[in-house]
């Protein structure tokens, strides 16, 4: 069986800072990483591969630079990788992005056969929409299981542990299926030296709109129903009381007094 893992290269949002003078994002120097939830999806795929045997294929839609993210995936054990890249894809919202990815999944299924599982992170940390996985499942008319924190294969399907608001469900479905992955237990693996060497030499083929026979009206800005009207930096200014250099007892007494005054105790 083949498992396709969809990954996105994202800026490390924990490293983004706001310029205090202009109140705008400082993007320069912010490192690009594999979206952490996609790394969990990849780890899930690699664990399934170890347990049941499978070939792990990784795809990413993005600019040429996203090949770096794909190489990181190859270095930790993915078998093959493809970049999905075309000028026509620029400006795609989630509906258009999921459409392009669904065409890539369909293309790989046709070329290679036997694609059983498509794994994605539950969401990417730059957009945080959690929409691309389910939308891709709908484009492909496949069942979806979201928020999976664990997955195992059964004779004809997949069983996942799905997080919900007050616990979790064990849910199963037949393959092929789309599964989106949340934080999983245990660590994600690190690349081996051999893996890094193999990744650095790997040629990553590029799938374009033409290869995938994609109608350009359905991707990029044209294929995106949502439009960004404006962006702005949230303003957070408050002039509160800050107590420094007091003993714990003095400071605590002051805070308790403040809370009492506000009728919060």
């Amino acid at each position, binding site marked *: 069986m083949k498992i396709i893992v969809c990954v996105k290269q994202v800026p490390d*949002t*924990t490293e983004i800072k706001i310029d205090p003078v202009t109140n705008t994002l400082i993007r320069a120097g912010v490192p690009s990483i594999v979206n952490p939830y996609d790394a969990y999806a990849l780890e899930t795929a690699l664990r399934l591969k170890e347990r049941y045997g499978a070939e792990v294929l990784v795809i990413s839609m993005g600019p040429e630079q996203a090949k770096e993210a794909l190489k990181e995936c190859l270095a930790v054990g993915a078998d093959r990788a493809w970049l999905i890249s075309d000028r026509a894809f620029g400006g795609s919202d*989630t509906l258009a992005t999921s459409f392009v990815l669904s065409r890539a999944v369909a293309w790989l299924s046709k070329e290679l056969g036997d694609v059983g599982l498509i794994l994605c992170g539950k969401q990417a940390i730059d957009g945080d929409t959690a929409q691309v996985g389910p939308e891709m499942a709908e484009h492909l008319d496949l069942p979806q299981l979201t928020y999976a924190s664990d997955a195992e294969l059964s004779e004809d399907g997949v069983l996942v542990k*799905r997080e919900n608001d007050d616990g979790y469900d064990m*849910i199963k479905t037949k393959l092929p299926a789309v599964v989106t992955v949340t934080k999983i237990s245990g660590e994600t693996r690190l690349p081996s030296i051999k893996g890094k060497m193999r990744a650095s030499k790997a040629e990553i083929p590029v799938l374009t709109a033409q290869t995938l026979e994609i109608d350009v009206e359905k991707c990029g800005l044209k294929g995106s129903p949502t439009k960004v009207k404006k962006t702005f930096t949230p303003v957070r200014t408050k002039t*509160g009381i800050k107590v420094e250099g007091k003993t714990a007892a003095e400071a605590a007494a002051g805070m308790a007094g403040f*809370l009492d005054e*506000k009728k919060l105790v």
Partner: protein
Amino acid sequence: MEQKQEYKNIWVFIETEEGKAKPVGFELLTPGRLLADKIGEKLVAVIPGYGVREAARQAAAYGADEVLFIEGEEYRNYRTDVYADCMTELVERHRPLVILMGATNNGRDLGPRLACRLKTGLTADCTALDIDSMTKNVEWTRPAFGGNLMATILCPEHRPQMGTVRPGVFKKPVPDEDGSAAEQKLIGESAGIKPERIRTEIVERIKEVVQSVNLEEAEIIVSGGRGIGKAENFSYIRELADVLGGAVGSSRACVDADWIPHAHQVGQTGKTVAPKLYIACGISGAIQHLAGMSGAETIVAINKDPDAPIFGVADYGIVGDLLEVIPELIREIKKVKEI
């Protein structure tokens, strides 16, 4: 889209679990009311579920002009295919202008599935909504880049316009207790769900027995961050929360370190909360965390680092060692409460 003007009314999807409505559905009736009034159209609550008549009556009491309820055993527990087929049928029948949904795990599972089937736009995790009364385009405002940036999104050419909102962002409307008036607003609907279309099966449901964490409803939250040092030190946070009758929250760092379950996490990838009082202990105040709690009425912070960004949003901050300050604070609060 040619018949854009055929799409009317503001829908709020109300998620139920075993017949009981999740609070976020009612919360969405607040912004839903504002949008409906601004364009002079109806606010409609849509409730598929099993044994949902009471939930439907509640939605009417919370101010929906109409409540479409869809009753059936197949809706007892959420499954994507059942709910997506049901909502698709209802949307095609009634053509709503706008659909608001709660950004729960199920809402975020259903929303994109439905939006994709309807080939329309969906804006996730909105924190503010407005509508242009001429174009009837909703202006959906949401955080991006981990809360570092806010974006206002439009879906100008496609209908319905869809968006999700996280629990705790809006407050529930004040309910109108007139029961008979509520009853008149209820409209039973049905959808033809084909069993062969249901492709997933819930094998087992496990409720976590860890104390129920209802952060979205809590009036007081005491949260611990990386600065507490180790898992055992959450006892300080718990004790302070107990004295105040509050709930225990956490930053992402502690969840990633497995010091506390994810259900306690406040922030961009956790819960959005708006309590009366938020006490941040050992939390530096990364923008991802601030995105989840800056709606609190009063914020107090205890942190060793005088430059921690949390002090920028705090009404009262103590620069100090929380392991020393918290026990003293507990003593002082007990004094105030005379216990």
